[in-house]
């Protein structure tokens, strides 16, 4: 299979509301989300997630069909979903800064 022709976004489970980048994707690159062509609002690196559709604050984020946390704020379709807008429902994630967990407040976006 020609790797270049593979769609750059992966839907891991039909219930998921995020997609995973199969390779690095540049800002402005046209990708397909659920059959619709869409210009990437930001660059996304391999393995990172973006919103499959607009997500309201407190939405449960599903990956592999399983919950992986909740949105700290609303995001538009195609936006990068990561530490700045998604929080754990269990334990906070860690940064390299000793003694500090990564800030999970929306106002640090």
């Amino acid at each position, binding site marked *: *299979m*020609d*790797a270049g022709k*593979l769609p750059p976004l*992966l839907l*891991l489970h039909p219930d998921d509301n995020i997609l*995973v*980048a*199969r*390779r690095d994707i540049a800002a402005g690159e046209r990708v397909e989300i659920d059959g619709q062509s869409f210009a990437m609002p930001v660059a996304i*690196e*391999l*393995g*990172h*997630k973006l919103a499959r559709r607009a997500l309201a604050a407190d939405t449960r984020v599903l*990956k*592999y069909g*399983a*919950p*992986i*946390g909740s949105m700290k704020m609303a995001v538009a379709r195609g936006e990068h*979903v*990561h*530490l700045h807008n*998604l*929080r*754990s*429902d*269990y*334990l*906070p*994630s*860690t*940064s*390299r800064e000793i003694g500090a*967990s*990564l800030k999970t407040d929306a106002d640090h976006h």
Partner: protein
Amino acid sequence: MNAVAKTRLSLKGYARRDGRKGIRNVVAVAYLVECAHHVSRLIVQKSGSDDVHLIGFPGCYPNKYSLEMMQRLCTHPNVGAVLLVSLGCEGFNREQLRRTIAASGRPVDLLVIQQSGGTTRTLNAGLEIVRKMRAELAKQTAVPMAIDELIVGTVCGGSDGTSGITANPAVGRCFDWLIEAGAACIFEETGELIGCERIMASRAVTPELGREIEACVDKAANYYRIMGYGSFAPGNAEGGLTTLEEKSMGAYSKSGSSPITGLIKPGDVPPRGGLYLLDVVPDGEPRFGFPNISDNAEIVELIACGSHLILFTTGRGSVVGSAISPVIKVCANPDTYDRMADDMDVNAGRILRGAELDDVGREIFALVESVASGELSKSEALGHQEFILTYKQFEPIGPACLPAA
């Protein structure tokens, strides 16, 4: 499926008195306190052999867990003979360890640096002992070994957003086929399975075991909460993982889809084939710090449970191997593989570029067979023999944890 399990290649093993077989025949040199570490390391280095491995425990205070771990490790089927190196005044119960090893039928010797007359005399005595042990082991011949005699552990390290899509599910396929062929497979790090407890419990062979699994993940969540950090490193986030439960879901896929046969603790050897969850989080009030301070602490515990070899999945790119048991590296991220191919046995990241999950799973299975037959894994050939053991405390497992026993 499945063509893989039916190939039933005969492996090669070294028969041990307890009925188990080893896929390696190493001499272990074990320091019993940090103060004996340098002398032990010199013995290993100057032996000039890759089959002489350095293990040990650094603490001066006695600890039931570390004694139990050292007994399990020194009588691991991959170990043929053991040289113990003590400073002399430490708290480690060296006589019990020596008796346990001798009772297993292995050649064992003990050097006490304070009695031997210091660094140089101990080194020279140690080199002579190791030379004789190696000559004795060289006389042993390997016997045929079947896949159902194999115990395989899996661990992930340096996970990223690709791990749960490529390498981990590919190892899961390999696990399913190994278990189908009668092998015992162990997955672990309950602190990295937080969020998967209910799904895991539903795969347990009995409801009682399912409740034990949920309780042990609760214990892990509580322990890590008190530590102040979850098992989530900055590199995980740089690689696209955002939350602990997201990392967990990815890590969980290493377990494949077989029923969960039992819940074991470090040093418990699976009594028969099947899938086992290893609970690595200490019991009781947090006392000695983080459950596992780095990946090799988990690998050592998998080996203490009898693992002949370890399947190590990595996204960001770990280079480690281990003393005693070979480590096979399954690289999840195709970009990492391109950068670090010399360290990686399998490029599972090619799944993102169109390869089939089953094909990568079959490649891992074939590697398990060849490494278990004596072929060196990449980390072995590069001389990686990392080892770390620290303080912990555990209560024995309850009867619900091994239902069929």
